[in-house]
């Protein structure tokens, strides 16, 4: 416990990190001066073992992580195989990154560091670590760029093609996803409420709804293109079809989520259906509805992109991806994928933020206070 005030897991990570650095140092001995920065990293990393005697500040681990990553990237050979000790550098800097992130979140939890700001640093570090590992592995292990290009190539392509990427984003996200998402979610909500009012409708629609929701979207896409034409309308229609059922199913489940005694209360007021809905069942369904909104936010984007595989005007993220694969412009494909990931995550994040505000009372949000 007080050996370095680290948890067992952090301690294990620290050992791994310093151990890998030490091994890296040993393996780099045959030609020590060739990459000085990397040697410095190995030496410092191995020296971090002193934490066995006296604690090391968490920022020092952060600095080591950064040093390792930078040294490694700078030292990457342009061609040919990578020397063995580079792999140890990768392991060591990954372990330092992990250790840093562990300690950072422990510090936030303990209240030593502020949540805002620091909370954001952690996923960013994780993402950057992924990118560095990706870069090192693709380049170090000579993965054919037509299978998986290194992030640096993707980034360069991204910067070179911002016009195309923006036009595709507008076509796919603004024109297809947003209207389709709004229509699909609203329709799902409305039908759920209508169905909920009538047990007959509910008994009839739900099994069929479940059946329809299981229709594979890729099957729907060519049909929608056939029905609604090549432009964004057919993509929006696919998005509507994709988002409708999750919303329907979730809302129906959510409308039943109010507890027995909460319903009894409404019953004693002889509240009419509409009042029970507005004052009890919809609020209680909030967590479920948001669940659907979140699931749908990623589904909508995928739906629109996939639908573009089946015929489009020659603009759009899905179009670019499918032709990009055909032309082996794989870095452009990944640049589009990056746009999709950023747009989708931001969309999801916005909805998650709204959720926190609206369903603040749910145990999973307020930390379970009874």
């Amino acid at each position: 416990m007080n050996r370095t005030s680290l948890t067992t897991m952090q301690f294990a990570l620290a050992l791994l990190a310093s151990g890998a650095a030490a091994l890296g140092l040993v393996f780099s001995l045959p030609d020590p001066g060739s990459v000085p920065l990397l040697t410095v990293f190995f030496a410092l990393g191995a020296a971090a073992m002193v934490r066995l005697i006296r604690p090391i500040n968490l920022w020092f681990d952060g600095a080591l992580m950064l040093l390792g990553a930078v040294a490694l990237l700078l030292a990457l050979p342009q061609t040919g195989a990578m020397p063995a000790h580079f792999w140890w550098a990768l392991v060591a800097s990954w372990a330092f990154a992990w250790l840093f992130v562990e300690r950072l979140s422990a510090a936030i939890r303990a209240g030593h560091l502020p949540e805002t700001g620091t909370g954001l640093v952690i996923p960013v570090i994780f993402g950057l670590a992924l990118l560095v590992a990706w870069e090192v592995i693709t380049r170090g292990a000579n993965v054919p760029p037509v299978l998986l290009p290194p992030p640096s190539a993707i980034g360069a392509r991204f910067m070179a093609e911002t016009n195309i990427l923006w036009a595709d984003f507008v076509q796919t996200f603004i024109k297809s996803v947003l209207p389709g998402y709004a229509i699909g979610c609203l329709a799902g909500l409305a039908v759920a409420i209508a169905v909920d009012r009538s047990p007959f409708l509910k008994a009839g629609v739900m099994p069929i709804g479940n059946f329809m929701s299981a229709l594979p979207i890729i099957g729907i896409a060519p049909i929608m293109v056939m029905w609604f034409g090549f432009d964004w309308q057919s993509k929006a229609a696919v998005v509507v079809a994709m988002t409708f059922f999750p919303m329907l199913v979730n809302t129906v489940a959510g409308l039943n989520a109010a507890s027995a005694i909460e319903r009894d209360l409404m019953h004693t007021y002889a509240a009419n259906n509409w009042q029970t809905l507005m004052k009890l069942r919809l609020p209680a369904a909030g967590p479920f509805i948001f669940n659907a909104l979140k699931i749908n936010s990623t589904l909508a984007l995928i739906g629109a992109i996939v639908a573009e595989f089946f015929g489009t005007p020659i603009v759009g993220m899905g179009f670019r991806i499918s032709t990009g694969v055909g032309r082996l412009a794989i870095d452009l494909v990944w640049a589009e994928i990056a746009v999709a990931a950023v747009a989708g995550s931001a969309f999801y994040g916005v909805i998650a933020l709204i959720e926190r505000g609206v369903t603040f009372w749910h145990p999973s949000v307020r930390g379970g206070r009874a």
Partner: protein
Amino acid sequence: MSETSSATACTNGPAVIRAENLGLTFPTGDGDIVALSDVNLTIEKGDFVSFIGPSGCGKTTFLRTIADLEKPTSGTLSVNGMSPEEARKARAYGYVFQAAALYPWRTIEKNIALPLEIMGHSAGEQAERVKRTMELVNLSGFEKKYPWQLSGGMQQRASIARALSFDADLLLMDEPFGALDEIVRDHLNSELLKLWARTEKTICFVTHSIPEAVYLSTRIVVMSPRPGRVTDIIESTLPRDRPLDIRETPEFLAIAARVREGLRAGHSYEEGSV
């Protein structure tokens, strides 16, 4: 007066609640539970009836049946001359549940305003009534808090305020003061009596406190479990106007003793049935 079936003969107001041979059985995976059996009871307008009996004897179940939250499996029950369902639809009663049942997404004042919203009171009137009832239960200052930020007793008081906020003629109260200390309890007891005297409400009140039952009621119904049934109905001979210190009078103590006896008689420890 203690014969169950004839207990109503001596009163003459119009019947608010009339139960005849009422029975209710819960089926469970593991055998039926008879929660009520053969209950005969008439409650007139303006009565203040307390229900007392061992835990699990069917008090809550009986109140819920009146409120049309459970359907009797035998016998008949009428409320204000209507079926319980019609009475509920006519918004004949206010109900205080044994658990507070506050909605977690509403602040305390919004929880109390809930029935008012549903019954269509104007915003101004809502605010006025919420303020008044929150004062009554001594919760002022907690208007904007959420239920989970309140102590157990405070939640219970909020739920009482909610039931009092609209003026139902029939109040069904299931251990409303169970989680309150003696002082608040005394205070709310006398407030409740005042309210009752002023408004001529009919009140059905479940309690475990014999003094509370005697102090408040015009009639005390003693129940016993397995199967839940009415074993005694005691008419109070106390005057309608009851200062707190009436609780030291011999008359009061005599009634309390009678209730205690009825309670003990229906109790399993003495019966050795368990």
